[in-house]
Protein backbone atom coordinates (compact mmCIF):
# COMPACT_ATOMS: atom_id res chain seq x y z
CA UNK A 1 0.00 0.00 0.00
CA UNK A 2 1.45 3.40 -0.95
CA UNK A 3 1.92 6.03 1.71
CA UNK A 4 0.51 9.52 1.24
CA UNK A 5 2.93 12.48 1.30
CA UNK A 6 0.99 13.78 4.33
CA UNK A 7 1.65 10.58 6.29
CA UNK A 8 5.35 10.69 5.40
CA UNK A 9 5.43 14.33 6.46
CA UNK A 10 3.60 13.57 9.68
CA UNK A 11 6.03 10.84 10.76
CA UNK A 12 8.87 13.38 10.37
CA UNK A 13 6.95 15.94 12.43
CA UNK A 14 6.13 13.36 15.11
CA UNK A 15 9.79 12.41 15.45
CA UNK A 16 10.72 16.10 15.56
CA UNK A 17 8.17 16.65 18.32
CA UNK A 18 9.55 13.81 20.42
CA UNK A 19 13.11 15.06 19.92
CA UNK A 20 11.99 18.54 20.94
CA UNK A 21 10.33 17.15 24.07
CA UNK A 22 13.45 15.12 24.89
CA UNK A 23 15.57 18.26 24.54
CA UNK A 24 13.25 20.07 26.97
CA UNK A 25 11.92 22.42 24.30
CA UNK A 26 8.26 21.51 24.52
CA UNK A 27 7.42 24.53 26.65
CA UNK A 28 8.68 26.84 23.93
CA UNK A 29 6.71 28.38 21.08
CA UNK A 30 8.44 25.87 18.79
CA UNK A 31 6.37 23.05 20.22
CA UNK A 32 3.10 24.93 19.66
CA UNK A 33 4.06 25.92 16.14
CA UNK A 34 5.07 22.39 15.31
CA UNK A 35 1.73 21.08 16.58
CA UNK A 36 -0.11 23.62 14.41
CA UNK A 37 1.73 22.25 11.36
CA UNK A 38 1.09 18.70 12.46
CA UNK A 39 -2.64 19.31 12.48
CA UNK A 40 -2.52 20.02 8.74
CA UNK A 41 -0.76 16.77 7.81
CA UNK A 42 -2.85 14.83 10.33
CA UNK A 43 -6.10 15.91 8.72
CA UNK A 44 -4.85 15.16 5.21
CA UNK A 45 -4.00 11.54 6.00
CA UNK A 46 -6.28 8.57 5.38
CA UNK A 47 -8.05 6.94 8.34
CA UNK A 48 -5.77 3.92 7.97
CA UNK A 49 -2.65 6.08 8.12
CA UNK A 50 -3.95 7.96 11.15
CA UNK A 51 -4.55 4.70 12.95
CA UNK A 52 -1.09 3.43 12.09
CA UNK A 53 0.58 6.65 13.21
CA UNK A 54 -1.31 6.65 16.51
CA UNK A 55 0.76 3.57 17.11
CA UNK A 56 3.92 5.47 16.20
CA UNK A 57 3.18 7.96 19.00
CA UNK A 58 2.88 5.06 21.42
CA UNK A 59 6.16 3.61 20.20
CA UNK A 60 8.01 6.92 20.30
CA UNK A 61 7.24 7.16 24.02
CA UNK A 62 9.92 4.55 24.55
CA UNK A 63 12.48 7.23 23.66
CA UNK A 64 11.46 9.20 26.76
CA UNK A 65 10.73 6.09 28.86
CA UNK A 66 7.04 6.98 28.97
CA UNK A 67 5.70 4.04 27.06
CA UNK A 68 2.49 2.51 28.44
CA UNK A 69 1.99 -1.13 27.50
CA UNK A 70 -1.36 -2.77 26.86
CA UNK A 71 -2.78 -4.79 29.71
CA UNK A 72 -3.42 -7.87 27.62
CA UNK A 73 -0.03 -9.56 27.08
CA UNK A 74 1.21 -11.03 23.82
CA UNK A 75 3.16 -14.27 23.70
CA UNK A 76 6.52 -14.70 22.03
CA UNK A 77 4.94 -17.26 19.72
CA UNK A 78 2.43 -14.71 18.44
CA UNK A 79 5.28 -12.34 17.92
CA UNK A 80 7.46 -14.86 16.04
CA UNK A 81 4.59 -15.83 13.74
CA UNK A 82 3.92 -12.18 12.89
CA UNK A 83 7.61 -11.52 12.20
CA UNK A 84 7.97 -14.62 10.06
CA UNK A 85 4.93 -13.72 7.99
CA UNK A 86 6.29 -10.16 7.57
CA UNK A 87 3.14 -8.65 9.05
CA UNK A 88 4.99 -5.62 10.38
CA UNK A 89 1.87 -3.77 11.53
CA UNK A 90 1.02 -6.75 13.70
CA UNK A 91 4.62 -6.97 14.93
CA UNK A 92 4.39 -3.36 16.10
CA UNK A 93 1.01 -4.02 17.68
CA UNK A 94 2.28 -7.07 19.58
CA UNK A 95 5.35 -5.20 20.83
CA UNK A 96 2.95 -2.89 22.66
CA UNK A 97 1.78 -5.95 24.60
CA UNK A 98 5.22 -7.39 25.32
CA UNK A 99 6.01 -8.99 28.62
CA UNK A 100 8.99 -11.20 27.84
CA UNK A 101 12.02 -9.92 29.81
CA UNK A 102 14.25 -11.04 26.93
CA UNK A 103 12.84 -8.21 24.86
CA UNK A 104 15.15 -5.58 26.23
CA UNK A 105 14.79 -1.93 25.23
CA UNK A 106 17.55 -2.08 22.62
CA UNK A 107 16.01 -5.16 21.00
CA UNK A 108 12.56 -3.61 20.98
CA UNK A 109 13.93 -0.44 19.41
CA UNK A 110 15.83 -2.46 16.82
CA UNK A 111 12.73 -4.46 15.87
CA UNK A 112 10.63 -1.31 15.75
CA UNK A 113 13.24 0.32 13.53
CA UNK A 114 13.15 -2.61 11.16
CA UNK A 115 9.33 -2.78 11.18
CA UNK A 116 8.70 0.93 10.63
CA UNK A 117 11.36 0.89 7.91
CA UNK A 118 9.69 -2.06 6.19
CA UNK A 119 6.38 -0.17 6.32
CA UNK A 120 8.06 2.75 4.52
CA UNK A 121 8.35 5.14 7.47
CA UNK A 122 12.10 5.64 7.29
CA UNK A 123 12.38 8.67 9.58
CA UNK A 124 10.51 6.79 12.27
CA UNK A 125 12.78 3.81 11.67
CA UNK A 126 15.85 6.00 12.14
CA UNK A 127 14.54 7.23 15.50
CA UNK A 128 14.44 3.63 16.73
CA UNK A 129 17.68 2.37 15.18
CA UNK A 130 19.42 5.40 16.67
CA UNK A 131 17.92 4.59 20.05
CA UNK A 132 19.04 0.97 19.78
CA UNK A 133 22.57 2.00 18.79
CA UNK A 134 22.82 4.45 21.66
CA UNK A 135 21.29 2.00 24.16
CA UNK A 136 23.75 -0.73 23.21
CA UNK A 137 26.88 0.99 21.88
CA UNK A 138 28.85 -2.25 21.57
CA UNK A 139 26.39 -3.83 19.19
CA UNK A 140 27.89 -3.51 15.70
CA UNK A 141 24.66 -4.26 13.85
CA UNK A 142 22.82 -1.45 15.62
CA UNK A 143 25.67 0.98 14.96
CA UNK A 144 25.68 -0.04 11.33
CA UNK A 145 21.90 0.26 10.85
CA UNK A 146 21.71 3.67 12.51
CA UNK A 147 24.47 4.91 10.22
CA UNK A 148 22.94 3.46 7.05
CA UNK A 149 19.52 4.93 7.86
CA UNK A 150 21.12 8.33 8.47
CA UNK A 151 23.04 8.12 5.18
CA UNK A 152 20.03 7.09 3.15
CA UNK A 153 17.90 9.85 4.66
CA UNK A 154 20.65 12.41 4.01
CA UNK A 155 21.01 13.32 7.68
CA UNK A 156 24.51 14.62 7.05
CA UNK A 157 25.52 15.71 10.54
CA UNK A 158 24.16 12.59 12.18
CA UNK A 159 25.76 10.30 9.59
CA UNK A 160 29.14 11.98 9.97
CA UNK A 161 28.94 11.88 13.76
CA UNK A 162 28.14 8.16 13.69
CA UNK A 163 30.89 7.57 11.14
CA UNK A 164 33.35 9.30 13.46
CA UNK A 165 32.16 7.13 16.36
CA UNK A 166 32.75 3.97 14.30
CA UNK A 167 36.15 5.30 13.25
CA UNK A 168 37.11 5.54 16.90
CA UNK A 169 36.15 1.93 17.60
CA UNK A 170 38.49 -0.99 17.27
CA UNK A 171 35.93 -3.76 17.27
CA UNK A 172 33.36 -2.58 14.72
CA UNK A 173 32.24 -5.13 12.15
CA UNK A 174 33.44 -4.73 8.57
CA UNK A 175 30.02 -3.49 7.45
CA UNK A 176 30.27 -0.60 9.86
CA UNK A 177 33.67 0.41 8.53
CA UNK A 178 32.37 0.34 4.96
CA UNK A 179 29.23 2.26 5.84
CA UNK A 180 31.26 4.86 7.77
CA UNK A 181 33.61 5.24 4.80
CA UNK A 182 30.60 5.54 2.50
CA UNK A 183 29.22 8.35 4.68
CA UNK A 184 32.53 10.22 4.49
CA UNK A 185 32.74 9.72 0.74
CA UNK A 186 29.16 10.79 0.11
CA UNK A 187 29.17 13.81 2.35
CA UNK A 188 32.69 15.07 1.65
CA UNK A 189 32.56 18.85 1.15
CA UNK A 190 33.44 20.48 -2.16
CA UNK A 191 36.30 22.52 -0.76
CA UNK A 192 39.87 21.83 0.39
CA UNK A 193 38.59 19.98 3.45
CA UNK A 194 37.48 17.12 1.18
CA UNK A 195 41.00 15.66 1.14
CA UNK A 196 40.79 14.84 4.84
CA UNK A 197 37.44 13.08 4.29
CA UNK A 198 38.94 10.89 1.56
CA UNK A 199 41.96 10.08 3.72
CA UNK A 200 39.71 9.06 6.60
CA UNK A 201 37.48 6.99 4.30
CA UNK A 202 40.54 5.29 2.79
CA UNK A 203 41.80 4.42 6.27
CA UNK A 204 38.43 2.93 7.24
CA UNK A 205 38.23 0.91 4.03
CA UNK A 206 41.75 -0.39 4.56
CA UNK A 207 40.71 -1.55 8.03
CA UNK A 208 37.61 -3.20 6.55
CA UNK A 209 39.66 -4.98 3.92
CA UNK A 210 42.27 -6.14 6.42
CA UNK A 211 39.58 -7.43 8.76
CA UNK A 212 37.70 -9.29 6.04
CA UNK A 213 40.86 -10.64 4.40
CA UNK A 214 41.99 -12.09 7.73
CA UNK A 215 38.96 -14.38 7.76
CA UNK A 216 39.06 -17.85 6.26
CA UNK A 217 38.50 -17.66 2.50
CA UNK A 218 35.37 -19.76 2.88
CA UNK A 219 33.95 -17.21 5.32
CA UNK A 220 34.76 -14.12 3.30
CA UNK A 221 32.07 -12.17 1.51
CA UNK A 222 33.45 -11.41 -1.98
CA UNK A 223 30.82 -8.82 -2.83
CA UNK A 224 31.50 -6.92 0.39
CA UNK A 225 35.24 -7.06 -0.07
CA UNK A 226 34.97 -5.95 -3.72
CA UNK A 227 32.81 -2.99 -2.70
CA UNK A 228 35.40 -1.98 -0.12
CA UNK A 229 38.17 -2.17 -2.74
CA UNK A 230 36.13 -0.10 -5.24
CA UNK A 231 35.41 2.63 -2.70
CA UNK A 232 39.08 2.58 -1.71
CA UNK A 233 39.97 3.02 -5.38
CA UNK A 234 37.63 5.99 -5.64
CA UNK A 235 39.20 7.55 -2.52
CA UNK A 236 42.67 7.05 -4.00
CA UNK A 237 41.61 8.62 -7.30
CA UNK A 238 40.25 11.60 -5.41
CA UNK A 239 43.57 11.83 -3.58
CA UNK A 240 45.49 11.76 -6.88
CA UNK A 241 46.97 8.29 -6.30
CA UNK A 242 46.31 6.78 -9.73
CA UNK A 243 48.52 3.71 -9.27
CA UNK A 244 46.95 2.99 -5.89
CA UNK A 245 43.47 3.32 -7.41
CA UNK A 246 44.41 0.90 -10.20
CA UNK A 247 45.64 -1.61 -7.63
CA UNK A 248 42.40 -1.28 -5.65
CA UNK A 249 40.18 -1.89 -8.68
CA UNK A 250 42.36 -4.86 -9.66
CA UNK A 251 42.09 -6.25 -6.12
CA UNK A 252 38.30 -5.90 -6.37
CA UNK A 253 38.39 -7.95 -9.55
CA UNK A 254 40.55 -10.60 -7.93
CA UNK A 255 37.83 -11.30 -5.39
CA UNK A 256 34.87 -10.66 -7.71
CA UNK A 257 36.05 -11.07 -11.34
CA UNK A 258 32.73 -10.06 -12.90
CA UNK A 259 32.25 -6.90 -10.84
CA UNK A 260 31.04 -4.40 -13.46
CA UNK A 261 31.67 -1.34 -11.30
CA UNK A 262 35.31 -2.37 -10.78
CA UNK A 263 35.73 -3.08 -14.50
CA UNK A 264 34.22 0.29 -15.38
CA UNK A 265 36.30 2.18 -12.82
CA UNK A 266 39.54 0.53 -13.95
CA UNK A 267 38.64 0.98 -17.62
CA UNK A 268 38.05 4.69 -17.15
CA UNK A 269 41.30 4.95 -15.21
CA UNK A 270 43.27 3.19 -17.96
CA UNK A 271 41.88 5.19 -20.87
CA UNK A 272 44.73 7.71 -20.70
CA UNK A 273 47.56 5.23 -20.42
CA UNK A 274 46.55 1.87 -21.89
CA UNK A 275 43.51 2.09 -24.13
CA UNK A 276 43.76 -1.57 -25.17
CA UNK A 277 43.59 -2.70 -21.52
CA UNK A 278 40.70 -0.30 -20.95
CA UNK A 279 38.88 -1.82 -23.91
CA UNK A 280 39.24 -5.31 -22.42
CA UNK A 281 37.69 -4.10 -19.15
CA UNK A 282 34.82 -2.40 -20.98
CA UNK A 283 34.22 -5.53 -23.04
CA UNK A 284 33.93 -7.64 -19.90
CA UNK A 285 31.58 -5.10 -18.32
CA UNK A 286 29.36 -5.00 -21.43
CA UNK A 287 29.29 -8.80 -21.55
CA UNK A 288 27.97 -8.75 -18.00
CA UNK A 289 25.06 -6.54 -19.13
CA UNK A 290 26.11 -3.76 -16.78
CA UNK A 291 23.56 -1.01 -16.13
CA UNK A 292 26.43 1.51 -16.15
CA UNK A 293 26.55 3.52 -19.38
CA UNK A 294 30.29 4.14 -19.50
CA UNK A 295 31.59 0.81 -20.87
CA UNK A 296 29.15 1.03 -23.80
CA UNK A 297 30.02 4.66 -24.39
CA UNK A 298 33.73 3.92 -24.72
CA UNK A 299 33.55 0.58 -26.49
CA UNK A 300 31.15 1.57 -29.30
CA UNK A 301 33.34 4.32 -30.83
CA UNK A 302 36.42 2.07 -30.52
CA UNK A 303 34.68 -0.52 -32.74
CA UNK A 304 33.43 2.16 -35.09
CA UNK A 305 36.93 3.61 -35.44
CA UNK A 306 38.19 0.18 -36.47
CA UNK A 307 35.28 -0.25 -38.91
CA UNK A 308 33.86 -3.13 -36.82
CA UNK A 309 30.35 -1.98 -37.61
CA UNK A 310 28.40 -5.06 -36.51
CA UNK A 311 30.11 -5.01 -33.11
CA UNK A 312 29.36 -1.31 -32.78
CA UNK A 313 25.66 -1.92 -33.53
CA UNK A 314 25.55 -4.68 -30.91
CA UNK A 315 27.10 -2.47 -28.24
CA UNK A 316 24.83 0.50 -28.95
CA UNK A 317 21.77 -1.73 -28.92
CA UNK A 318 22.91 -3.30 -25.66
CA UNK A 319 23.36 0.18 -24.19
CA UNK A 320 19.76 1.06 -24.95
CA UNK A 321 18.68 -2.21 -23.37
CA UNK A 322 20.81 -2.26 -20.23
CA UNK A 323 22.33 1.13 -19.40
CA UNK A 324 20.08 2.89 -16.92
CA UNK A 325 22.10 6.01 -16.27
CA UNK A 326 22.40 7.52 -19.73
CA UNK A 327 21.53 11.14 -20.38
CA UNK A 328 20.49 12.80 -23.63
CA UNK A 329 24.09 13.48 -24.62
CA UNK A 330 24.98 9.79 -24.41
CA UNK A 331 21.77 8.70 -26.14
CA UNK A 332 22.52 11.10 -28.99
CA UNK A 333 25.95 9.51 -29.34
CA UNK A 334 24.55 5.97 -29.43
CA UNK A 335 21.95 6.90 -32.09
CA UNK A 336 24.59 8.73 -34.13
CA UNK A 337 26.98 5.75 -34.03
CA UNK A 338 24.15 3.35 -34.82
CA UNK A 339 23.26 5.50 -37.84
CA UNK A 340 26.88 5.57 -39.06
CA UNK A 341 27.38 1.82 -38.55
CA UNK A 342 24.10 1.04 -40.31
CA UNK A 343 24.97 3.31 -43.25
CA UNK A 344 28.37 1.60 -43.50
CA UNK A 345 26.54 -1.76 -43.51
CA UNK A 346 24.33 -0.42 -46.33
CA UNK A 347 21.11 -0.53 -44.27
CA UNK A 348 18.06 1.07 -45.95
CA UNK A 349 18.41 4.86 -45.95
CA UNK A 350 15.07 5.55 -44.15
CA UNK A 351 16.40 3.56 -41.18
CA UNK A 352 19.68 5.48 -41.19
CA UNK A 353 17.90 8.83 -41.53
CA UNK A 354 15.58 7.93 -38.66
CA UNK A 355 18.55 7.12 -36.42
CA UNK A 356 20.27 10.41 -37.28
CA UNK A 357 17.00 12.23 -36.60
CA UNK A 358 16.75 10.59 -33.17
CA UNK A 359 20.32 11.62 -32.41
CA UNK A 360 19.55 15.18 -33.50
CA UNK A 361 16.43 15.32 -31.33
CA UNK A 362 18.50 14.54 -28.24
CA UNK A 363 21.30 16.96 -29.08
CA UNK A 364 19.73 19.72 -31.19
CA UNK A 365 22.77 22.00 -30.88
CA UNK A 366 25.24 19.35 -32.03
CA UNK A 367 26.17 20.37 -35.63
CA UNK A 368 28.45 17.36 -36.10
CA UNK A 369 25.49 14.96 -36.12
CA UNK A 370 24.03 16.75 -39.16
CA UNK A 371 27.42 16.85 -40.86
CA UNK A 372 27.82 13.08 -40.36
CA UNK A 373 24.29 12.59 -41.69
CA UNK A 374 25.32 14.22 -44.99
CA UNK A 375 28.46 12.08 -45.33
CA UNK A 376 28.69 8.65 -46.97
CA UNK A 377 32.14 7.97 -45.50
CA UNK A 378 34.91 9.63 -43.40
CA UNK A 379 32.52 10.19 -40.54
CA UNK A 380 33.72 12.10 -37.54
CA UNK A 381 33.42 9.75 -34.55
CA UNK A 382 33.46 11.74 -31.33
CA UNK A 383 32.29 10.87 -27.82
CA UNK A 384 30.71 14.06 -26.50
CA UNK A 385 31.23 13.26 -22.82
CA UNK A 386 34.85 13.89 -21.88
CA UNK A 387 36.91 11.31 -20.03
CA UNK A 388 37.20 13.61 -17.04
CA UNK A 389 33.44 14.10 -16.91
CA UNK A 390 32.84 10.37 -17.34
CA UNK A 391 35.09 9.61 -14.37
CA UNK A 392 33.50 12.31 -12.28
CA UNK A 393 29.98 11.14 -13.06
CA UNK A 394 30.88 7.50 -12.43
CA UNK A 395 32.33 8.41 -9.03
CA UNK A 396 29.37 10.62 -8.12
CA UNK A 397 26.85 7.96 -9.13
CA UNK A 398 28.75 5.34 -7.17
CA UNK A 399 28.78 7.54 -4.09
CA UNK A 400 25.01 7.98 -4.23
CA UNK A 401 23.79 4.73 -5.67
CA UNK A 402 26.11 1.96 -4.62
CA UNK A 403 24.30 -0.46 -2.36
CA UNK A 404 25.36 -0.43 1.24
CA UNK A 405 26.16 -3.88 2.58
CA UNK A 406 23.16 -5.58 4.11
CA UNK A 407 23.02 -6.02 7.86
CA UNK A 408 23.84 -9.39 9.30
Amino acid at each position, binding site marked *: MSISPSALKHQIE*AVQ*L*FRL*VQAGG*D*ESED*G*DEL*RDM*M*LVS*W*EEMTDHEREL*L*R*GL*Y*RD*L*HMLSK*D*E*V*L*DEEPATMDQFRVAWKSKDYTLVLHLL*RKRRDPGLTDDKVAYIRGRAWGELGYREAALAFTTYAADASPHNGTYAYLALVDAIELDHVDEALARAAAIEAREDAPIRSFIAAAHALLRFAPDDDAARRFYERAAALLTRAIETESARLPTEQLPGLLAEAYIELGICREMLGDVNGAHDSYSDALKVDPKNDAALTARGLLLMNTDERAAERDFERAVQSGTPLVWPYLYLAPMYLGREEYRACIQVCSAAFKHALDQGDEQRANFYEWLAIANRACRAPEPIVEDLFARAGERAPLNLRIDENRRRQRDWEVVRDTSLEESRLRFREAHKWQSPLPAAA
Partner: protein
Amino acid sequence: MGEQEERKDVRIPCMFRTMWPDGARPRVGTDRDVLGARVPADVNLVEAARVRPGKGMSVFRSIQQMPPFLIPKDYLARFPEAGGKRGKTIWRLGTEGFANGPVTDDLVLRAGSAHGALEPAREMPLDAYQAALAATRDGWVPV
Protein backbone atom coordinates in the same frame (compact mmCIF):
# COMPACT_ATOMS: atom_id res chain seq x y z
CA MET B 1 -24.90 27.00 35.83
CA GLY B 2 -28.61 27.62 36.33
CA GLU B 3 -31.39 25.04 35.97
CA GLN B 4 -32.54 26.54 32.67
CA GLU B 5 -28.99 26.41 31.25
CA GLU B 6 -28.57 22.80 32.38
CA ARG B 7 -31.66 21.84 30.41
CA LYS B 8 -30.14 23.59 27.42
CA ASP B 9 -26.92 21.60 27.88
CA VAL B 10 -28.82 18.37 27.32
CA ARG B 11 -29.38 19.41 23.71
CA ILE B 12 -25.85 20.61 23.09
CA PRO B 13 -23.78 18.34 20.84
CA CYS B 14 -21.02 16.53 22.67
CA MET B 15 -17.57 17.88 21.80
CA PHE B 16 -14.07 17.81 23.27
CA ARG B 17 -11.27 20.34 23.39
CA THR B 18 -7.88 20.53 25.11
CA MET B 19 -7.51 23.77 27.10
CA TRP B 20 -5.52 25.19 29.95
CA PRO B 21 -7.45 25.04 33.23
CA ASP B 22 -8.36 28.03 35.33
CA GLY B 23 -9.59 26.51 38.56
CA ALA B 24 -12.35 24.03 37.76
CA ARG B 25 -13.13 25.50 34.34
CA PRO B 26 -11.18 26.26 31.16
CA ARG B 27 -9.19 29.45 30.89
CA VAL B 28 -10.84 32.11 28.74
CA GLY B 29 -8.73 34.05 26.27
CA THR B 30 -7.57 34.40 22.70
CA ASP B 31 -4.30 32.45 22.85
CA ARG B 32 -3.74 28.82 21.94
CA ASP B 33 -5.57 26.17 23.89
CA VAL B 34 -7.93 28.41 25.82
CA LEU B 35 -11.66 29.02 25.54
CA GLY B 36 -11.79 31.55 22.73
CA ALA B 37 -10.86 31.97 19.13
CA ARG B 38 -7.38 32.92 17.95
CA VAL B 39 -7.43 35.87 15.62
CA PRO B 40 -7.03 35.52 12.71
CA ALA B 41 -6.31 31.75 12.70
CA ASP B 42 -9.73 30.61 13.96
CA VAL B 43 -12.06 33.27 12.58
CA ASN B 44 -13.56 34.24 9.28
CA LEU B 45 -13.08 38.00 9.41
CA VAL B 46 -15.43 40.13 7.34
CA GLU B 47 -13.70 43.29 8.38
CA ALA B 48 -11.38 44.14 11.23
CA ALA B 49 -13.86 43.53 14.03
CA ARG B 50 -16.64 41.43 12.52
CA VAL B 51 -16.79 37.68 11.91
CA ARG B 52 -19.11 35.40 10.02
CA PRO B 53 -19.65 31.63 9.90
CA GLY B 54 -17.08 29.49 8.08
CA LYS B 55 -14.37 29.19 10.73
CA GLY B 56 -14.33 28.83 14.47
CA MET B 57 -12.75 27.41 17.59
CA SER B 58 -11.63 23.79 17.03
CA VAL B 59 -13.36 20.90 18.77
CA PHE B 60 -13.31 17.11 18.34
CA ARG B 61 -15.91 14.37 18.24
CA SER B 62 -14.14 12.25 20.84
CA ILE B 63 -10.83 11.93 22.62
CA GLN B 64 -10.10 8.79 20.63
CA GLN B 65 -10.35 10.88 17.48
CA MET B 66 -8.19 13.73 18.72
CA PRO B 67 -4.72 13.84 17.20
CA PRO B 68 -2.28 12.29 19.71
CA PHE B 69 -0.19 15.46 19.84
CA LEU B 70 -3.18 17.34 21.29
CA ILE B 71 -3.88 14.82 24.07
CA PRO B 72 -1.85 15.96 27.08
CA LYS B 73 0.72 13.45 28.27
CA ASP B 74 -1.00 13.52 31.68
CA TYR B 75 -3.57 11.24 30.00
CA LEU B 76 -1.00 8.58 29.04
CA ALA B 77 -2.49 5.93 31.32
CA ARG B 78 -5.82 6.16 29.52
CA PHE B 79 -4.53 7.16 26.08
CA PRO B 80 -1.07 5.65 25.57
CA GLU B 81 -0.58 7.59 22.33
CA ALA B 82 -0.88 10.97 24.13
CA GLY B 83 1.88 13.32 23.01
CA GLY B 84 0.48 16.72 24.01
CA LYS B 85 1.91 19.25 26.35
CA ARG B 86 1.51 18.41 30.01
CA GLY B 87 -0.63 20.57 32.31
CA LYS B 88 -3.59 21.04 30.03
CA THR B 89 -6.96 19.38 30.49
CA ILE B 90 -9.36 17.81 28.06
CA TRP B 91 -12.83 19.26 28.47
CA ARG B 92 -16.21 18.09 27.28
CA LEU B 93 -19.19 20.25 26.38
CA GLY B 94 -22.66 18.83 25.77
CA THR B 95 -23.98 15.32 25.61
CA GLU B 96 -25.81 14.97 22.30
CA GLY B 97 -24.42 13.57 19.04
CA PHE B 98 -21.58 15.38 17.28
CA ALA B 99 -23.58 16.89 14.41
CA ASN B 100 -24.15 20.23 12.72
CA GLY B 101 -26.48 22.37 14.74
CA PRO B 102 -26.94 25.17 17.25
CA VAL B 103 -25.00 25.16 20.49
CA THR B 104 -26.27 28.46 21.88
CA ASP B 105 -28.20 31.32 20.34
CA ASP B 106 -24.93 32.75 19.02
CA LEU B 107 -22.88 29.62 18.30
CA VAL B 108 -23.24 26.68 15.94
CA LEU B 109 -21.22 23.50 15.60
CA ARG B 110 -19.94 22.69 12.13
CA ALA B 111 -19.08 19.01 12.52
CA GLY B 112 -16.73 17.00 10.34
CA SER B 113 -16.15 13.29 10.73
CA ALA B 114 -13.71 13.73 13.62
CA HIS B 115 -13.03 17.43 13.87
CA GLY B 116 -15.35 20.41 14.00
CA ALA B 117 -15.52 24.11 14.69
CA LEU B 118 -17.61 26.12 17.09
CA GLU B 119 -18.56 29.01 14.80
CA PRO B 120 -20.58 32.19 15.09
CA ALA B 121 -24.23 31.47 14.23
CA ARG B 122 -24.34 34.50 11.94
CA GLU B 123 -22.26 37.54 11.13
CA MET B 124 -21.54 39.41 14.35
CA PRO B 125 -18.92 41.60 16.04
CA LEU B 126 -15.75 39.67 16.94
CA ASP B 127 -16.19 40.69 20.58
CA ALA B 128 -19.69 39.22 20.62
CA TYR B 129 -18.37 35.93 19.20
CA GLN B 130 -15.60 35.77 21.80
CA ALA B 131 -18.12 36.60 24.53
CA ALA B 132 -20.42 33.82 23.27
CA LEU B 133 -17.55 31.32 23.48
CA ALA B 134 -16.60 32.57 26.95
CA ALA B 135 -20.23 32.22 28.04
CA THR B 136 -20.01 28.45 27.54
CA ARG B 137 -17.27 28.26 30.19
CA ASP B 138 -19.43 26.75 32.90
CA GLY B 139 -20.70 24.08 30.53
CA TRP B 140 -17.26 22.52 29.99
CA VAL B 141 -16.43 19.66 32.30
CA PRO B 142 -12.99 18.07 32.70
CA VAL B 143 -12.63 14.54 31.37
